Structures are given as C-alpha cells and as structure tokens.
C-alpha cells in the first residue's frame, strides 16, 4: 500500500468502520495527518504514509 487512503481502506476491512473514527483521531493527534480523510498532498507522500503506518503500529494496528 502506497497511499494513506489504501491504508484507511485496509483498516476498515480489518477493524470495521466504527473503530476508524477514533483511530484516525489518534493518528491525527500524533502526526497531524488524517487517516480518515487524507489531504491530496499527503495521500501519496511517502514520508506521510510512513508516519501513518508507524502511528498505527504504535496503536497495535498493522496493515
């Protein structure tokens, strides 16, 4: 997965959409990047994608 939106879709598939809102808020507070609605300039930015992956891993979510 090279886009944040792809990671988001994988999170929804594995954890359900109910958990996405809180997970996205936690990722946003930790990184400033939205998992739920990534800005276009963030979505494919490798550095941002890596930030989101790490934040999710810290929360016990691997995709």
């Amino acid at each position, binding site marked *: 997965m090279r886009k944040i939106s792809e990671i988001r879709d994988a999170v929804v598939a594995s954890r359900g959409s109910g958990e996405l809102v*809180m997970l996205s*808020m*936690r990722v946003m*507070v*930790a*990184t400033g990047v939205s998992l739920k609605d990534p800005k276009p300039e963030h979505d494919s930015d490798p550095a941002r994608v890596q*930030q989101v992956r790490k934040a999710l891993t810290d*929360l016990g979510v691997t995709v």
Partner: protein
Amino acid sequence: MSGSTTNTAAARGFRSAHTAATQSREIVEDLVAQFGEDCDPRLVLTFFHHDADGAKITGLLSERWPSAQVVGCTTAGEFTETHAGQGGTVALALSGEVITNAAAEIAGFRQGTSDGVDAAIARLESGLGSKLRDLSPSTHIGLLMVDGMHGDEELVNQRLGFHAPSLSFVGGSSGDGLEFTRTRVFCNGRESDHGAVFVVLEARVPFVILKTCSLRPGPHHFTVTRADVTQRVVHEVDGRPVLQAYAEAVGIPPEELDSQVFMRHPWGVMVGDDPWVRSPREVLPDGGLRFFCQIPEGMPLSVMENTDLIAGMRTALDGVRADLGGAAGGAVLFNCILRRLQMDADGLHQAWLELLADLPTAGFHTYGESWLGHMNQTCTGIVFAPVSEGTTPGA
C-alpha cells in the same frame, strides 16, 4: 473541622467539596462532613496542594468508603464550582446512581513507561473482568492522572490507545504549584512520583467529553522539519531555524520571544476545526525551542491566536449541556496551568466560577491535559448528565 470550607452544590449523585484544612485527618473529616453522612460514593476524585499527604488522604477516604475507588493528585491550583484557589483540597464524589462500576490502578514507570502502563492495564482488566478494548465507549470512559515531571504523557496515551483504541481516557498531568520539582498521583492510599493513575468507570448516565481552548489558528502555518522528539525540542520548521520563523510569524525579533508570546501564540495541530495545542516552554541556547509536548518531524502546525477564555468556556459548557439533553449533573475538569496564569493576570476566576455555578465540579490546574494524546492550554474533562428520576444505585 479547623479548616475553612466552601459550600458547594449537591446534585443527586454528585457531591463536591473544598477545604482549606492542611492536616490530613482534618482534610478528610471536612470532606466527609461536606459530602454528608448519607454519601455512598463509588468514585472519589480529590486534588490538593503538593505538600499534602495524598497517600494518607486517599487512604483515609478509602477506609471511610471501602467500596469506592479514591484517586487524586497534586496540582497547580484547584477548583470546584464555588471555589478557586491554591493550597487547599477539592473533591468530587460520584454515587452508584452515576456509576455502575469503577476500577482504578496506579502505574509505576521507574522500570519503563510502557511496561508500567501495560502492567496496570492488565490489573485493571483483571479487576473489571474484561479487556478494555471490549468495553463499550458509549457506557465506559477512562480517567488518567500522570505525574507531570517526567515527560511520559505521550507514551502513556499511546499505550492506552494500543490497549483500547476506541475508549477515551481523559485527564491531566499533576502539578506542584509551578515549582517544577516533584508531582505525585495517588490511588487508594498508594502514591507515585513517577507514574500514573488510571480509572475506568461504567456510567449509568450519559456523559460527554468537554475540550475547549481560547485559541484559533492564525494565518501562519509550519511543518516541523527537524526536531528532537523525546526532548520535546523543535529546531527547524519548513527548513528554517525555528526561532526565526516563529518570530516572523508573530511579528517580533527572535530575541523578544518569551513566555508572554508563548502563551498568546502557542502552536496547534488542527483536527478538523479543533486544535490540539502544543505550547512553547523555553528558548534554548542552541537556537531550539522546547515545548510542553512532543512534536514529531513532518507534523503540520498552525501558529495560534488568542480568543476570549470565558466566552470559549461558556460556549463549550453550553455545547455539552445541549449534547446531554439540556442539563449537566456533574463534571471533572482538567485546566492547563497556562490558562490559570492567564486567568490570574486578567482577573477571570470569578467569571469562571459563575460559569460553573450549580454544576458540582472538581478540577485542577494541570501541567498538561490528555485525551487521545497529550496537549496544552486547554480545559478538558468529562461532564455527566443529571441522574434521572427512578434511577437506583447499581449493584
């Protein structure tokens, strides 16, 4: 009772109290007397001066109400809905009409923060008979009080998110009256000056999280490009020296960056329209800027501008009352020390108390607030709905 007291509101299920007594037994006797002989709490939250013997106070309260969890911490000032000050003790008792069940644990971080959190969560889950991630966030909520001197808050919040991604833990970092030497947290007679206290409660009434700050994003925005995250230091933003960029944004020379500028123009991570504020703490000799929160490289931030603190709090309280169906029953609030300093300077404490009138409240001025992460310059807390007619105490 030798200490002066402040009469506080008593709504059904919630009782708040303040005492100016300084000796542990007198403090406890005064709180118990104000709560009343018929008080039967499931949870007692108490916040007090940093010289107080919190282990004795929470221990004596636990002896008085063995079925209650009694937790607390030292502060940079305390308040109820009728009293605001420093050096006293405040408390809020929540009865079985408000809470079905509460569990509390103290975590020590001397052997490692993550390990300390994980061990305390395991004990909490054992006591509750359930994994935290299996609890419903519509009926369960967590409280946390973290010692405010070791910079563990980000990792603590991260581990709480790991164990319970959908469950909110709301709280604050304990204070020591701006001495910045030693802060403590307490749980049922035990204490830690390098740790945290966690509470998980099951509510019988609706609740909402209040989070407000008197700040809005200004026209200047940065992305952090070089930082020492664990030391909470930023060195560069947008590839430029941080002091130069920050000073330009607020329209002053870099050498004039001081605590007054920091308070008026902290930085904020925008989550939708809501800022999670990171407050600058000090300019470092090497040209770095130390914050009260961690800021990782790559984080986009806005330089904030001040708004009206009292108007913001009024709007926040009106909002949570509306969310609760029109009325609130009780509140626990964590208000940043930087906001208290602004309230001191601008003479806002009486206006603050008028906002809280008739809402049984206990709160303290913190060294940082927690909800989903660590932040500064907010008032963050939990507001409960009133107990409705026909509600009986839980088993």
